[in-house]
């Protein structure tokens, strides 16, 4: 039977393997030079913080892969010859493949700063990065983090648990305000300060300076500030890791180019996850999706295709979530950082600046298109259904309690949200009819 080779055993590669295995008994080999077993990449931070051991980040016990006959090969793919259907491995020489899935993920994006490759300067993507960070931060008196995204704030949290003072350079006016609307970005910015982080907003890195020992000694910002530090975390985004396809006939731009079926330009070669780039993404969809969820969903679609049921990748109603120190973030549907002209936005923020709810809807039809939540949990199924069914903001507000997913006894914020709406539109009052509860959820 046709053999399936997967390069990369992150969430994308292993999800392809698991779902193909559910549907077929064909031989499956997963090649990785990172670690022999799947681990949760977003959980690496918790290992550094001492919340978990690395072992705990493995979603499956080690016997799982043998039992499901998913062979693992600890090696590195140097190049791919699609004519001969052959991989060149760093250690294992040449290895043929039948069908190939490239799920090599991403790596730290650097922008050519002087000194960016000095010892003590690093990103945080792989297990090797985690081990390196453990090493690099051992005797550090101050760390500088460059780039105000999700990995940046996670790195800041990690370092504070080791009592290492952090200076956080953020290009934007407020933390992550290229994604978050200004109000939410302000809340998180405030929370970052609360944790003792030295934020440098609207500030970019210019240069990293070496010390006499050849390690990083200081950084210089575009505002001319010289910050002494022994560690620099580079978190200005990640770029697809596509070294394996260089020199092959597989087309790549930033990432490996694929169509909606995750097929590359070469027959029997597919790419998915952080390393893939869509040739023609749908409107308001990015070309490269680099999230845990999208990797998993792409893999599920691809596994169907590989088992003969050619399935286009469709991520459905958008969702994402994160945690900024103590504040959880969930988003459903479309919420732009700057509202589009035809959109209205209802925003309510708790006076403690740690909880907020935003509902975005179209001005004309009043249909809800997105939710943004900080410090409050909402049900994905309910929000998705409302967006899919094009429910109006009034309907959503009346039933808002149905979406609340906070634990029992937590204060309910929905009455305040409805009140905020009624203040905005005093001529047509909305009354909250549904409180929190699961009784009506069976149709979800």
């Amino acid at each position: 039977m046709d053999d399936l080779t997967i390069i990369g055993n992150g969430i994308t590669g292993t999800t392809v393997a698991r779902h193909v295995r559910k549907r077929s008994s064909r031989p499956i080999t997963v090649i990785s030079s990172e670690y022999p077993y799947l681990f949760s990449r977003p959980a690496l931070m918790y290992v550094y913080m001492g919340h978990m051991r690395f072992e705990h980040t493995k979603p499956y016990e080690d016997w799982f892969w043998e039992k499901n006959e998913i062979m693992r090969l600890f090696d590195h793919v140097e190049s791919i010859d699609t004519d001969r259907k052959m991989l060149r491995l760093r250690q294992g020489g040449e290895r043929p493949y039948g069908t190939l899935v490239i799920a090599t993920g991403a790596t730290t994006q650097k922008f050519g700063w002087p000194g960016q490759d000095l010892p003590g300067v690093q990103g945080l993507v792989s297990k090797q990065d985690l081990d390196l960070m453990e090493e690099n931060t051992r005797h550090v008196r101050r760390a500088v983090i460059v780039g105000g995204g999700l990995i940046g704030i996670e790195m800041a949290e990690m370092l504070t648990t080791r009592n290492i003072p952090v200076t956080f350079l953020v290009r934007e006016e407020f933390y992550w305000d290229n994604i978050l609307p200004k109000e939410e970005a302000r809340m998180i910015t405030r929370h970052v300060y609360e944790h003792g982080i030295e934020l440098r907003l609207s500030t970019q890195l210019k240069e990293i300076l070496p010390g006499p020992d050849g390690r990083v000694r200081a950084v210089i910002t575009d505002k001319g500030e010289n910050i002494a530090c022994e560690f620099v975390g580079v978190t200005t985004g990640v770029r697809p890791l596509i070294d394996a396809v260089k020199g092959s006939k597989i087309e790549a731009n930033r990432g490996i180019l694929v169509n909606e079926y995750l097929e590359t330009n070469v027959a029997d070669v597919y790419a998915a996850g952080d390393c893939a780039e869509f040739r023609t993404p749908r409107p308001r969809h990015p070309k490269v999706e680099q999230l845990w969820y999208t990797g998993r969903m792409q893999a599920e679609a691809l596994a169907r295709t590989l088992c003969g049921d050619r399935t286009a990748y469709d991520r459905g109603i958008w969702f994402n979530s994160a945690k900024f120190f103590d504040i959880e973030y969930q988003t459903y549907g479309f919420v732009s950082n700057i509202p589009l002209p035809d959109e209205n936005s209802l925003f309510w923020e708790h006076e403690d600046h740690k909880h907020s709810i935003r509902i975005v809807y179209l001005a004309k039809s009043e249909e809800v298109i997105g939710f943004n939540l900080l410090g409050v949990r909402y049900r994905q199924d309910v929000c998705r259904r409302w967006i899919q069914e094009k429910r109006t903001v009034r309907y959503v507000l009346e039933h808002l309690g149905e979406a609340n997913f906070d634990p029992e006894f937590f204060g309910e914020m929905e009455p305040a949200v409805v009140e905020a709406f009624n203040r905005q539109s005093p001529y047509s009052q909305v009354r909250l009819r549904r409180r929190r509860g699961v009784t009506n959820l069976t149709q979800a």
Partner: protein
Amino acid sequence: MSTIILNPSSNVSLSLAPHPHPNLGTVKKSGLALFGLGLLMLFVSLTGASDGTPLLFLLLSFGLASAGGLLYILPQIRENPPGIKHNSIFFSAAMARGAIGWIIGICFTGFYVLLYWFPELLTRWIRLTDPLSAVLRGRPADQWFLYGTFYTLAILVMGARMFVKYRHSRYQQIRTASVMFFQLGFAFLIPAWLELLNQPGFYFTYFWPLRPYSLWPGDVQSLMNHPGGLGIFMVFWGAVMTFVATPVLTYFFGKRWYCSWVCGCGGLAETLGDPFRQLSDKSLTAWRVERVLIYSVLVFVTVTTLLLWGNSYSGGAVLGGLSQGFASWYGFLIGSVFSGVIGTGFYPIMGSRVWCRFGCPMAAILGILQRKFSRFRITTNGGQCISCGNCSTYCEMGIDVRWYAQRGQNIIRASCVGCGVCSSVCPRGVLNLENGPMKGRYNLG
């Protein structure tokens, strides 16, 4: 002490040198000192120094240790903004099976061995609690009063720690208040007060089969024969709790109404045991062992109970020796060794719920009801799991919560005690403890 900077322009943290062990601050250090002093006094009393002045030494030992514990715990409120702070737990010598963990484990285990089989060695400690026992019960203390005092203080002091740790979670606060209330009131003060009134020192929060005696002929008959109606009420209460309240409450709320809200064993696990919850074994093998053991204990206690009643009806003619043998072996193996020595003594080695998970027959019954006939479930919120493993790691019952969460499945497991910590530690808001219609609650993807 770490500094919280609320003013963005402040540069205070620049002056902080990195500390692998941050300065504890005066209050916390004093707390530790007092706690140490209290322990020291406990050992000093073993020399006989406390003879004649038990009250003084009671205050110097139990009193100082408790006050010290609180002084250490309460300032933590100011150290960090509220939120999950499991920082450095797996670097800790106490909480990650390091040297201190083993020492604590041996001390706990040793204490139980002395308590059950060599109480005379604890005589001087028992005498320390005489003044308290005199006030509460109107009689001198015995080893069980000493144990109850330790137990209750542990739940109260470590309960305060839970309040500090979970000051952002009302579910955890209310649940902790509940176990503190039931321990202090129903498992300590009320039984003592009943004894003061010459009534049976009855525990209204322990029922058959966790406390099998509640429905064994010996206790039942002596309660029924007790002058006044209270003894009969107690028998009635025990039977109603076992046969009516247990299934009804479990149907509505799941097993948690008892295991993590009322039960004393659960109360200790959720407070004193909380620093060790991450040590439970999450492997499939452990789950297999758990199922064999816990249902074996349930069968054991049920057979023993039936034998005892059979023997009682037959006037002791047929099953006398056999049923008594079962009863005393059950008391020794399950009541003492399993629930005490291993159940609590092994906290720092196997996590806080060893007894509840592998042994408790009450948990077995509640678990069957929860699995088959309950509105309770842990709901998984769509596809948002990132498989990080915090939920599984901090599940004291060793449930691999992530296994279900990452598939988008609800979690319905017999062993889940509904502590809610998986939901608290989830960094993506994926898990929630809920009661709802039984239809569709499994939500299999």
